[in-house]
């Protein structure tokens, strides 16, 4: 008879892969992934839409999502387009993408990252306090047991992205210069 340490003890984060919002509680990283998908419904890219056959989602820095981003977006299209997920390790790597998630690990290189995407139709999203004021468009933050998000309208305007007014009503607007 074999002894079995609880599987979660070895790989705790891998135990939960369901993203169904009907569950009583979802974990923070799951909620952020679902929120990213939901947020994109309220954003319109310039010139009538997205140019590619796939929605290009990129993460720069140490991903907080493990492998879950690929798992989720394998079955959840964005704007009716299949989602390709890419990872960048350096601001110089940033190529053409539609959404860039800036990980917490990029606190030191954020300015360089934002200068690479400045005025390009790339929706920038982060989950680090203070990143919105520094120029990230959407910052997912936690308030108590719930998630909310901040929006910095300046880079949104510069990039010619458009956001739905109802969506902005739900947001905390940052950076109104």
């Amino acid at each position, binding site marked *: 008879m074999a*002894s079995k340490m609880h599987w979660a003890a070895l790989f705790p*984060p891998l135990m939960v892969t369901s993203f169904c919002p009907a569950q009583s509680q979802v974990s923070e990283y799951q909620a952020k992934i679902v929120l990213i998908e939901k947020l994109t419904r309220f954003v319109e890219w310039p010139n009538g839409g997205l140019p590619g056959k796939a929605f290009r989602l990129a993460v720069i820095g140490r991903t907080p999502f493990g492998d879950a981003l690929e798992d989720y977006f394998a079955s959840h299209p964005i704007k009716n387009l299949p989602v390709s997920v890419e990872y960048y390790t350096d601001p110089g790597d940033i190529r053409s993408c539609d959404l860039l998630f800036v990980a917490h690990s990029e606190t030191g290189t954020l300015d360089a990252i934002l200068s690479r995407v400045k005025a390009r139709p790339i929706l920038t999203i982060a989950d680090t306090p203070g990143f919105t004021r520094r120029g990230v468009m959407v910052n997912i933050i936690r308030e108590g047991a*719930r998630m909310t998000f901040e929006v910095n309208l300046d880079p949104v305007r510069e990039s010619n992205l458009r956001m739905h007014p109802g969506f902005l009503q739900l947001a905390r607007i940052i950076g109104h210069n």
Partner: protein
Amino acid sequence: MHIWKTILSAAVAIPLSAQEPSTEDLKDLQAFLDQPVQTASKRVQRLKEAAADMTVLKGHDLMDLGYQTLGDALGGVLGFRTNEDRTYQGLGARGLYVLGDQNTRVLILLDGHALNSAAEVGSSKVGADFGIPLTQVDRVEIVRGPASSLYGNSAFLGMVNVVTKGPAQERFSGEAAVTGDTRSLAQGDAMISGRQGSVGWRFLFSSLGRGGSRVRFPELSSQTLPAELDQEERQSAYLNLTGGQWNLAGYVMERTQRASSAPFQSTIGSPVNRDRNRQAYFDGRYTPSFGAIETLFRVFGDRSEYGCDLDYDGTRGAGSGPYTESDPNWSLGGEGQARVKAGDSLLFTLGWEESQQHYHGVADSSGTIIETKVRHRVQNTYIQGEWRPTDSLGFTLGLQQASWIVTRAQTLIDGVSTPYPTPTLRGITPRFAAVWQPSSLDIFKLLYGGGYRNPTIFERYYSDDGSILANPSLEPERIRTLSGVWVHLWGGGIQSQVSLNDSQWRRLIQPVVLEEGVQQSQNSPRTLHGSSLEAELQGRWPGWSFYSSLGLYRWEQEHQTFPNTARIQAGFRLTRHWKHWNASGEIRYVGPRENPELATRVPGSAVCRASLGWEQDHWWVRATLEDIGNAQRQDLVASDYAPITHMASDGRTFRLSAGLRF
């Protein structure tokens, strides 16, 4: 602030257009933001950051390729291959399949519950005797290398955890599926699932029948094999109930194979021949948290049984006459575990497990009644510390002390008792892992782990009227493996892994022929040394995914290649998804291997599989063509099966399956 917000919002707001999201989307977003979120780690490990060498097969991978058995699926994963003896599908790891091993060296878990048993007389656990339809599997987590410091006995060469799909979120849902193939398979599966308040439940039932096989064995001069050769039936059921902090699971399975083509030394294809496997367990878990301490309390009970009716005509080395056997093993046990977080960077896990077990095997060999009775106890105590000094560096150190305490062991032949000495076997198994992630695209791992496997009751205590002798002094076998792993994310959805592995396997347990017709399991005095280079490349783009693997292996005892070692194994699979259609193709290759005992050398062999599926919300249909060519024919068998030296091959199989969901 509100004025600013309104003015500035208007500047970037989307004008009304056809693409405007619906008010439902807005309500959905609002509802989602109102939903509480679990307090959890802010960062989740990538699978490849885990302190182990592992691969995960997703449920849709299993569906896409149309695999029929768990063994079929595992055979395409880096480091694994199957060996078919037409009764049990053996699982080889890192190029080696020890002939006659009935998966005693790879731990198979179903939702975390071990299917391996102490008796291990005859079973596979990954063939038809695995009772969960693959359409109901969420994922299969596969660890290469020993993991006994965490999972104890049997996690010797690797571990496989099959995670079933959880209960439905809706009040009630269900699925029914049927499968048939050109090898006279007929399988029906049913699943119902639901939720009442906070309690979710899921019930599976599966029934499988396979008619006779028409294979031929070139070694046999006469081919008058019966129509019911290898005829097989299996019924299984699985119930899972889950609440907030608790989970209850129950599993029953019975599988019978008639006229099996290669039962031990008995008359090939005799209609009398019948192999039977029964397995049942219950598993109850409660996982409360007390502040920073997460706990697990578990109770479980198992019953596994191998049984057979065999016809011996004396032509295969054994005596003649009828033979029946039944080998049930019961166990009842419990486990307690605590996970304690100390600060942000330290996590300790400690636990204890014990089970009381009872084995009572009864064999009737042409009127001679042979009984084997063993009362035994398994104890495991384990501790593991995980230290993450920085976000990019982590260390894991684990130790497990295992004890196998046999309180009584005896053989009775026609009521005459032969008691055996009952020494307690104890051992400590270490584990060390260092994981370093210098950038978000690279992961380096240094893994050192031990594995041990207690002798099975069959190997240690089984004795009959002369052809098999007990060996109560048999010691556990042990393995130590050191692995270096490099994982790299190439961008564009491509990920690679390269690993170098070195293993020292001591006291290998194998049957040894003492004289003609008499064998005994013994520890090999020679160390088996294994080394391997493994590589995995996988990628995923919208609509496409691929997986490829390559392993180069060497297993030697005193500079002699160990029998049945494949020097090379490789595999490639590609899947294309459209909106409803999906198409997959797979090819696997196992290199040549030798078995000096049988004076045979088999060439390499390839297996090809193509599958086409159509899936809608409420139904799906899938067609799969498998061409194993001569691959099964290249699977060697133990000397017990003489004069057969190779298995017969099933060649090409076309399979059709369809399912309904509601």
